[in-house]
Each structure stands twice: as structure tokens, then as C-alpha cells.
């Protein structure tokens, strides 16, 4: 073992010395806030308040995750002992709020949504419906963006990887939104998305003769879609470059071999390109997932989480409660849950995806 002695015993000292700046930085600006946040999440600490900070145990977490389902019973007409029925023949139910406010067990809860299933009316009540909605929105965003944007990026990479005239120009064009700040693009797209006077609806109106003009950011049905389109548009070029690097790393000999075996274009793609891109794809999936979970800028600039919480995300909720509403303790609890969520998913993805990498 020559290596042990090659630096005459200074190796450990040098190693620590060269690691020190990064370790100090990671400790102060990543580890410390992480533990600080964990600590504060058990308090009611506020950003600005003359009131003293108190230890509140798991109260913040209970408020975030508090969720109950109540079954509503239709109102009974005392005379007929039958359920009362309105003009349209539907059963009349009591107001959820009356029930929630009337029962101490439901204190601090409010209606999230109501659903008529299994022949009864069920109300889901939550302490912070916005947080639960933010979880759902974030998952929807991730589940659409990861395959959608990744697929678009792969198609673009395949296109510009062909030895066609002008491929550099196209590559540059596809990548250009990546180098532009999201804050800038979100403002520009807000203008483009204006339902009456924006470029996008002017265009859609011309193409569909006025039959298709979504309200984009203004409607709860389309706001998240609008944000997804902008996000994919902005970032697809980045994944394209990574796929492109992956494609260029595939040995040409594999394609030649496939051709000799009589494989057509599709078969070559299926049996050479896809397996060879496995590592690249894994990298793209993992990195896009983590980035997608952090959705914030577009939401903050364009919709502030609205309308009707349709675009609220976990990070937005953390900033909104922890910073804007100044509830540091509560916001910290949101970020702790967010951290647990992202780490869990990252570890799961790694475990699932890496297991078959070894085959390669």
C-alpha cells in the first residue's frame, strides 16, 4: 500500500483542511436550519410578535394534518318521520358548519369538501384544508411534469440528435427558456395568459373560431394546467440537453449491429436507444422530481396559490404561513413535513430505479 505513505502522513490533515470550508458552509446553512426548523416546529414562534414563544408539542402538526370524515344525516320531518325533500326532490341536509361548530371534537376544523357516495352524504373536514390541497396539487404537478416534460425533452433530444441541417439552431431555441429566470417568464406569461387580451387566447380564438378560450389563471379548473404548461416549456430544454448527452454516448456500433440484424428504425429505438438511455432517464426522473416538488416562483408571481387553492403548493404554503403570516413555528412544521416527503420519495425512487441499473 504505497498510497498510505505517499504524502508522508499529512493526508488526514490536508483532507480536513480542504473539506473544512464546505463542511462549515453545509453545517451553518443546511444542517443548522434543518434542526432549527425541527425545533421551532414544536413552538408557536412568530416572526414579529410581542408575545413570548411557547412550546406547543405536536400542535402544529395536528393542525396541518387534522382530518376527519363526518356522515351527514338528512333532516327529518317530525311530522312524517321521513327525510325532508326540497323542490327538486333532493334530501335536505343540515349545514356542515352548524355541526362542526356545535361539536367540541370538531373545534378548529372546517369543511374541505363534500361528497355524496354510498347512498349518504359525507363531509371531509380538516383543520388546514389549504395544506392538504397543497399536498395534492404538488403531487399532481409532479406526476404530470415528470413524464410530460421528460417525454417532451426526449422527443426534442431525438430530433436534434439527427444529422439534419439546422439542428444546432433548433437545439439553441429549445434551450433558450432555460437560461431565462422563471420570475421573468412568469410575468410575461401572465400577460400571455390574459383571457381577453392575451396572445394565447387571441391565437386560440383565431384557430378555433372562438370556440376554445380557457380562462387560464383565472379559473380553478385551468390554473394548475396553465402553470404546468409554463413550467414544462421553461425547463424541458434542460432535460433535452441531458438526454442529448446520453444519446451521444451510445456507441454507433450498436446501431450498426442492429441494422445488420435487419432491425427497422422503431426496433433500433426500442432495443438500442431505450436500454442505453436507462441511466440518463433515471437521472432525469430523479432530478425532475426533486425540482418539481419545489414549485414556488410561478405560483407566487402568477396566482398566489389561488383561485380557490387550485395552485397552492407545499412550498408556497410554507412561505405563506411561515413568512407572510409570520407563523414561524407553523411554517417550520410545513417545511419539516416537506423535507420528510421529499427525502422519502427520493429514497424510494433511488431504491426502485437503481435496483435494475446493475444489469447494465
Amino acid at each position, binding site marked *: 500500500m504505497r498510497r498510505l505513505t505517499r504524502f508522508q502522513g499529512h493526508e488526514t490533515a490536508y483532507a480536513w483542511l480542504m*473539506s473544512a470550508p464546505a463542511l462549515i458552509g453545509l453545517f451553518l446553512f443546511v444542517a443548522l436550519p434543518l434542526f432549527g426548523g425541527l425545533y421551532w416546529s414544536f413552538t408557536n414562534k412568530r416572526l414579529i410578535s410581542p408575545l413570548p414563544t411557547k412550546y406547543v408539542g405536536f400542535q402544529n402538526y395536528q393542525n396541518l394534518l387534522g382530518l376527519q370524515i363526518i356522515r351527514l344525516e338528512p333532516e327529518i320531518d317530525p311530522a312524517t318521520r321521513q327525510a325532508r325533500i326540497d323542490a327538486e326532490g333532493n334530501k335536505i341536509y343540515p349545514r356542515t358548519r352548524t355541526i362542526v361548530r356545535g361539536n367540541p371534537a370538531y373545534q378548529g376544523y372546517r369543511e374541505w369538501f363534500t361528497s355524496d357516495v354510498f347512498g349518504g352524504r359525507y363531509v371531509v373536514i380538516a383543520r388546514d384544508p389549504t395544506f392538504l390541497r397543497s399536498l395534492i396539487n404538488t403531487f399532481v404537478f409532479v406526476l404530470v411534469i415528470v413524464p410530460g416534460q421528460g417525454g417532451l425533452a426526449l422527443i426534442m433530444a431525438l430530433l436534434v440528435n439527427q444529422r439534419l441541417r439546422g439542428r444546432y439552431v433548433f437545439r439553441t431555441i429549445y434551450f433558450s427558456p432555460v437560461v431565462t429566470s422563471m420570475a421573468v417568464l412568469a410575468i410575461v406569461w401572465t400577460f*400571455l395568459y390574459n383571457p381577453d387580451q392575451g396572445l394565447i387566447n387571441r391565437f386560440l380564438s383565431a384557430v378555433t373560431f372562438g370556440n376554445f378560450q380557457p380562462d387560464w389563471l383565472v379559473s380553478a379548473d385551468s390554473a394548475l394546467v396553465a402553470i404546468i404548461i409554463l413550467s414544462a416549456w421553461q425547463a424541458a430544454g434542460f432535460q433535452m440537453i441531458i438526454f442529448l448527452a446520453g444519446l451521444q454516448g451510445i456507441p454507433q456500433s450498436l446501431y450498426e449491429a442492429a441494422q445488420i440484424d435487419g432491425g427497422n428504425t422503431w426496433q433500433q*429505438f426500442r432495443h438500442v436507444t431505450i436500454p442505453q438511455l436507462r441511466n440518463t432517464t433515471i437521472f432525469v426522473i430523479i432530478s425532475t422530481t426533486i425540482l418539481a416538488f419545489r414549485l414556488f416562483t410561478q405560483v407566487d408571481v402568477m396566482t398566489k396559490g389561488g383561485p380557490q387553492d387550485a395552485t397552492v403548493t407545499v412550498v408556497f404554503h410554507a412561505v405563506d404561513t411561515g*413568512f407572510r403570516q409570520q407563523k414561524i413555528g407553523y411554517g417550520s412544521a410545513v417545511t419539516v413535513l416537506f*423535507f420528510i416527503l421529499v427525502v422519502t420519495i427520493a429514497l424510494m425512487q433511488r431504491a426502485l430505479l437503481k435496483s435494475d441499473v446493475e444489469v447494465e
Partner: protein
Amino acid sequence: MSANIAGEIDYRARRGQSRRRLRRFLILVIDYSIMIGLAMFFLFPIVFMVVSSFKPEKLIFDDLKTIAWAFIPREVTLENFTSVFRRVPFGRFMFNSTFIVLATVSAGLLVNSMIAFALARLRWKGKTAVLSLVIALSIVPLDAIVVPLLVLVNEFPWIDGSIGWLDTLHVQIIPFVADAFSIFLFYQFFIGIPRDFDEAATIDGGSPFAVYRRIVVPLSRPVFATVAILQALFLWSSYLWPLMATRGEASRPLTVGITSFYGQDVKWAQILAFASMITIPVLILFLLFQKWFVQSVAATGLKG
């Protein structure tokens, strides 16, 4: 659509089959249609932004009524740009953003590559522990720690004796110098460099730092370039942190500069001029370096 349509096309064409030639032509047409369609999709917001920034405010809305005019600068004015300069210290914002990016990236390249070198090339006690720590921390999203980080940096002392880092340039730089993901990229690259080179230097009596500086760094240009570009892109568009940690114009970066400009007295022509002034310089930089960038990414092994 395959990576290899072109290769295949060449091969078939050489065999001179006319039916194949028609097919080749059709594929080419389809390919270009898709590529041009996508190009229009990716370009239209930016072109619209730049073109409109040269138009008088009223004309932007008039021209939107007919889509074609929206992309043609039929009347050119620089007034939007001069208004932006009059209303906000654009130069200051530009300096702040540029400074933050350059300072963080250059310090980060040094700091992160040094620890990666120690992890990848040196033998020392605690190495495994440190490496696992770095990998674990690389998962921590910045967004998960901003709220507590804000409270913490507010308590940190600074070299001039003052307490609290808020509303400064360094609060936007120092926390982002050490970056676990960058360390990880450096580590992956360094571990692949053959060790024979180190040994040559060792025989010459060099210290580990000399090996790092004279051998590893010169051989690792692609990874330095990739990390620099990734970090620069991230920092340049950084929004959440400066939004929370700064307030005055003195330390405000461009991203917060434009969103606050957008928040007050909306004049779209000026906003688009502001947006163009942020975007165009970076696009030009990218155009100059794009080929180099793609090669770096390929060489770094960012692809997994």
C-alpha cells in the same frame, strides 16, 4: 422519430432505391415540421416580449388583436427602456445579480471541488462519514429550510461587527457557496480520473493540494464548467430567498427587481422592456457558449 433516422436514410439512399427516396423525403418533411412547430412554441413568448418592448404601450394592445402584428415592430421606440431606467436603478440590480452569481460560483467551484477531491482521492479517517453526510444533505431542498434559515442568518455576526445579514449581498452569496450536489458531481468525476497521475506528482514531492491543483483540476475542466453553469443558472433565477432576505434596492437582484416593478403601476410595455433587458444578455452568453456547454454536460456524466 429515431436518433438514427438520418443514419438510416444515408444508408438506404446509397442503395439508390427511388421508393426509399420518397419515404426519406416525407420523413424529412415531418421531422422539420415538428421541429419548426416546437421552435415556434419555444420562441413565441420571448419574441413577443422583445418585439413588444420596442412598441408604444397602446400599440401592443392594438396589435394583439391581429396576431401577426404582435410579432412585428411596426413602430419602434426606446421610450420603454428609458422609462425603466428612470423608474428603477436597473444597473444596480444587474450588478447585484451578476456579482452574486460570479462570487458564489467562483467560491463554490473552489470550496466544493476541494472537499470532493479529499473525498475522492485522499485516505483519511472520517471520510465515509463525511461522504454519507454530503449525500444525505444533497437531498435537502433549499425551500425546506428558508424559513428557519432566515431567522438564523438574522442572528449571524458580520465582519464589520454588525449582527444580522439581512438585506446585504453576502446573505445571497455565502449560504450557497457550499453545495452538496456540486460536491457530488465533482466527486463522481474525480473518482474516475486514473490514479497514476497522482503518483507521478507524489514522486515529485507534491502535497495533496499540489496534486489537486496541478493534476486533478486541469483534467477536470468539463465538470468545473458543468457545475459552474448549473449553479449560475440556479443563482441567476433565484427568487424565493432574495424575496425574503432583501428589501431595499441596494441589494435587490433582478428577479425581485422585476417582480416588484410588476407589482407597482403596471405598464406592460415597460415591464416587457425590463424583462427583455434581463433576458437578452444571458441569451447572448448562452449562444456563445452553447456548444461547449453540451459537451461539458456529456463529459461530466450528468446523464447518470
